[in-house]
């Protein structure tokens, strides 16, 4: 036992002398401290999202072993995967569930950062990269949804891309580029496949690398309320204390994923048929539901513009404002105590949650 240990240590030392990455990471991890206070729980959400992203990369690469990216074979390859390949159902179901949980933790992570105002100087770039990662995550979800080429994903993509088409002036052009033609066809599938498996993951790696580097560089943000207390909060080292707690969370997440995959495996449905009527109850993924539901309420025309166009531009503007929060929240930057952006954040959460619930509660006929 001790012989093995000393041999391992020797191997580690040999490696460190030549590469040095492990030693450097250990040094940084031990130097970094995580403050302990009543909001510390929110510090775990970023790491949790990162873990789920890693799960996505691993299961995504595994799915590539059997997936065929064309309209003739995509559905059949997933059918083969779900029925004949050992643990194929498990790999696909985990990919499905980890995607949903990742978007969920992404939202919670973002809102916790917003409400605790962790975007204040010098962490503006961390926030900007975070909002970009949210947008990339949502786009990954949208593009991945089409890949099984089933009825539901086909019509959801038709509706989703059609919405892009109503943007004034450039809409039709964007629609064509997105679909690879006028309609959702096999050309759209290969396009989405390229985006989902190559372009977007590459972008995520770049932006995520910058994001994690910035978190490392600036350390954990302490909320203003805690900062203004008399005593500075206690803190624990990132390595090993916080990392081990992170690990417990990750193990729990893995268990939850396995349970969800086993009890609620991802469905496949019917193969897409461009010449069949859309089935009743076409819904987007839950994280697009609030936008989908909002568009339903808009009248056909607002001030001479198509209602949908106004809605899309509205969401675009809201996204831009969200991106610019660190710039817009001047009082917080100046160190003044203002809760304006906290209330705006709460309003956003209430809006998203309410519209999502309505979207699921209201029957498709209503």
């Amino acid at each position, binding site marked *: 036992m001790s012989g093995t240990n000393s041999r391992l240590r020797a191997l580690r030392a040999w490696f460190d002398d030549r590469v040095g990455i492990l030693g450097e990471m250990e040094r940084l991890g031990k130097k970094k401290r995580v403050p302990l206070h009543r909001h510390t729980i929110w510090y775990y959400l970023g790491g949790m999202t990162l873990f789920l992203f890693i799960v996505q990369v691993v299961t995504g690469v595994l799915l590539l*072993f059997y997936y065929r990216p064309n309209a003739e074979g995509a559905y059949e390859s997933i059918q083969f995967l779900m029925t004949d*390949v*050992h*643990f*194929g159902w*498990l*790999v696909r179901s985990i990919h499905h569930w980890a995607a949903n949980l990742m978007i969920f933790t992404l939202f919670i992570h973002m809102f916790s950062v917003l409400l605790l105002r962790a975007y204040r100087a010098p962490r503006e770039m961390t926030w900007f990269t975070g909002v970009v990662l949210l947008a990339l995550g949502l786009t990954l979800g949208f593009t991945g949804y089409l890949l099984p080429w089933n009825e539901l994903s086909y019509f959801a993509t038709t509706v989703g891309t059609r919405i892009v088409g109503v943007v004034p002036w450039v809409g039709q052009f964007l629609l064509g580029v997105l679909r690879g033609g006028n309609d959702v066809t096999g050309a759209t599938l290969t396009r989405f496949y390229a985006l989902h498996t190559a372009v977007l993951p590459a972008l995520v790696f770049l932006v995520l690398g910058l994001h994690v580097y910035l978190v490392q560089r600036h350390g954990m943000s302490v909320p203003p309320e805690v900062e203004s207390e008399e005593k500075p909060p206690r803190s624990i080292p990132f390595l090993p204390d916080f990392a081990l707690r992170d690990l417990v969370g990750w193990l729990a997440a*893995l268990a939850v994923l*396995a349970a969800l995959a086993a009890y609620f495996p991802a469905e496949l449905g019917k193969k897409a048929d461009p010449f069949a009527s859309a089935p009743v109850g076409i819904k987007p993924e839950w994280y697009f539901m609030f936008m989908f539901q909002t568009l339903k309420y808009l009248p056909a025309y607002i001030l001479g513009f198509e209602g949908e166009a106004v809605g899309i531009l509205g969401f675009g503007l809201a996204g831009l404002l969200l991106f610019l929060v660190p710039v817009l929240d001047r009082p917080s930057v100046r160190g003044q105590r203002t809760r304006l952006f906290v209330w705006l954040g709460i309003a956003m959460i209430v809006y998203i949650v309410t519209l999502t619930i309505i979207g699921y509660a209201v029957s498709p006929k209503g």
Partner: protein
Amino acid sequence: MDGEEVRQAHGPRDGSQRDGASRREVVNWILGLGAGGVAAAVFYPIVRYIVPPEEAQSAANSVALSVKPEDVKSNSGQIFKFGNKPAILIRTPTGDLRAFTAVCTHLGCIVEYRADLSQIWCPCHNGHYNLQGINVSGPPPKPLTEYVVNVQGDRIVVSRGQAG
């Protein structure tokens, strides 16, 4: 606090240290078992997943060809599907119909019939088989498996089994 007091506060030195060490060993063992369990639960499905599922073996023991016997010219060969594997049907210069697997025994290329040599030939590494399917020159290590050819009226039926 002098040394004696410290020792009293922490109990007798040697005994407690051995207890602590063995307790740590037990905890390490449990942790190691847990980590091993998690690793096995993750990697076993991944390995099983990557290993392709068994293909259904072709149940075909014989196949009726679409070509008529009189259309197979002397000193010629053609590839046909036997189950999910390629096979070659040849008519020798003396007029016999024979069939072999078309997969070269060297590295699995598909062989062809060379009318100029009256031999079965593998173009990948210049392997030669004679009209009995026996490897006569080049790298192939074994003869081609021969199939049984029966002419039933105007049909050619090729089946597995020892050629008579």
